[in-house]
């Protein structure tokens, strides 16, 4: 006896629904578990200035993924922080040199570890790097060795 087509169609549709649900899960999880942070960023190095935006998601476990783009949306680099390790990837061509990547990674590590805890009355100093919260609310990070200043300004409006 030939089997009906309908159970197969139903099974197939169930499979597709399940696949769609699985696809949507990461977004749902991210909304529930992470807190987005958005900053305007200004990097000053050797009399040259680069401005842009820094967007990051911090999970309840303290893991961070984020990106730095210029105002036009062109990516400067992506970063992630997990288990006390910072990674940077997709670095824009002019900055994609091993020695620059190393400086950026170490500076970002210092920034990501401290930016959410910095207070007006307590500067953070670790080796060649320092971080302070200015009276206008900006957070300034200084790399003394390479004389790089990063200024993070929290964006008020959600992106």
């Amino acid at each position: 006896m030939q089997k009906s087509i309908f159970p197969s169609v139903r099974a197939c549709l169930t499979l597709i629904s399940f696949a769609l649900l699985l696809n949507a899960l990461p977004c749902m999880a991210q909304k529930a578990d992470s807190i987005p942070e958005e900053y305007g960023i200004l990097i000053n190095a050797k009399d040259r200035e680069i401005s842009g935006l820094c967007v990051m998601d911090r999970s309840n476990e303290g893991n961070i993924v984020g990106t730095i783009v210029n105002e036009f949306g062109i990516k400067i680099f992506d970063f992630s922080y997990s288990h006390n390790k910072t990674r940077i990837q997709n670095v824009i061509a002019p900055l994609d040199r091993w020695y620059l990547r190393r400086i950026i990674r170490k500076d970002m590590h210092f920034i990501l570890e401290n930016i959410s805890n910095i207070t007006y009355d307590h500067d953070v100093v670790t080796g060649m790097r320092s971080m302070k919260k200015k009276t206008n609310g900006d957070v300034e990070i200084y790399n003394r060795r390479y004389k790089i200043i990063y200024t993070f300004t929290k964006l008020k409006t959600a992106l």
Partner: protein
Amino acid sequence: MMKRVTFLLISLFIGVSVMGQTKLNAQQQEQVLQKINVATASMKTMQCDFVQTKKIKLMKKEMVSSGVMYYDSPNKLRWQYNKPYVYVFVLNKEKVSLKSSKTTQTIDVKENKMFRQLSNIILNSVTGGHLKSSAEFEVEIWNSNNIYSALLIPKKKELKKLYKSIEISFNASLTMVETVKMVETTGDITSVTLKNAKVNLPIRESLFNVN
């Protein structure tokens, strides 16, 4: 049977996604490009609002910003973000001025390759000028229910590193760019939608001041 039904459903999904999208042949493409060229040649000034949406692959999150744009043919452009940050890019012939809430910079485009490219991308995307520069892009024109869009595939190494493709969609009468969608090699997608466009109205010269 299960396999056959799955195949049927997959075929159906694929069919739906490309249905109504037709790639024009060389002759049709030339005709459309000519229409666009005529329209852009007659555009002396343009002002509009824009909304920029960036979809970040790593974060599954969208960044949305908006502002206003002023263009005075052939090489004056003011691209101004108002929300959620203030940032003004002004191109006036060979000079570019960048103003944020913290800093102002003036750059000579001739001496800065990166800004030359950036200026070209913005200017040509807005005016449809990319369609003429066959040295930089491979151009395909697509038609979907009489709405035309140009798919640009970068040819040059430097642009190839940044973008997988740039898709420019036009209004029905082919007189105006409506959306520019830039697909980056990293998987991020930046879309810029132009709204409330006004063409050939006088624009204050001071908006293009770079000093």
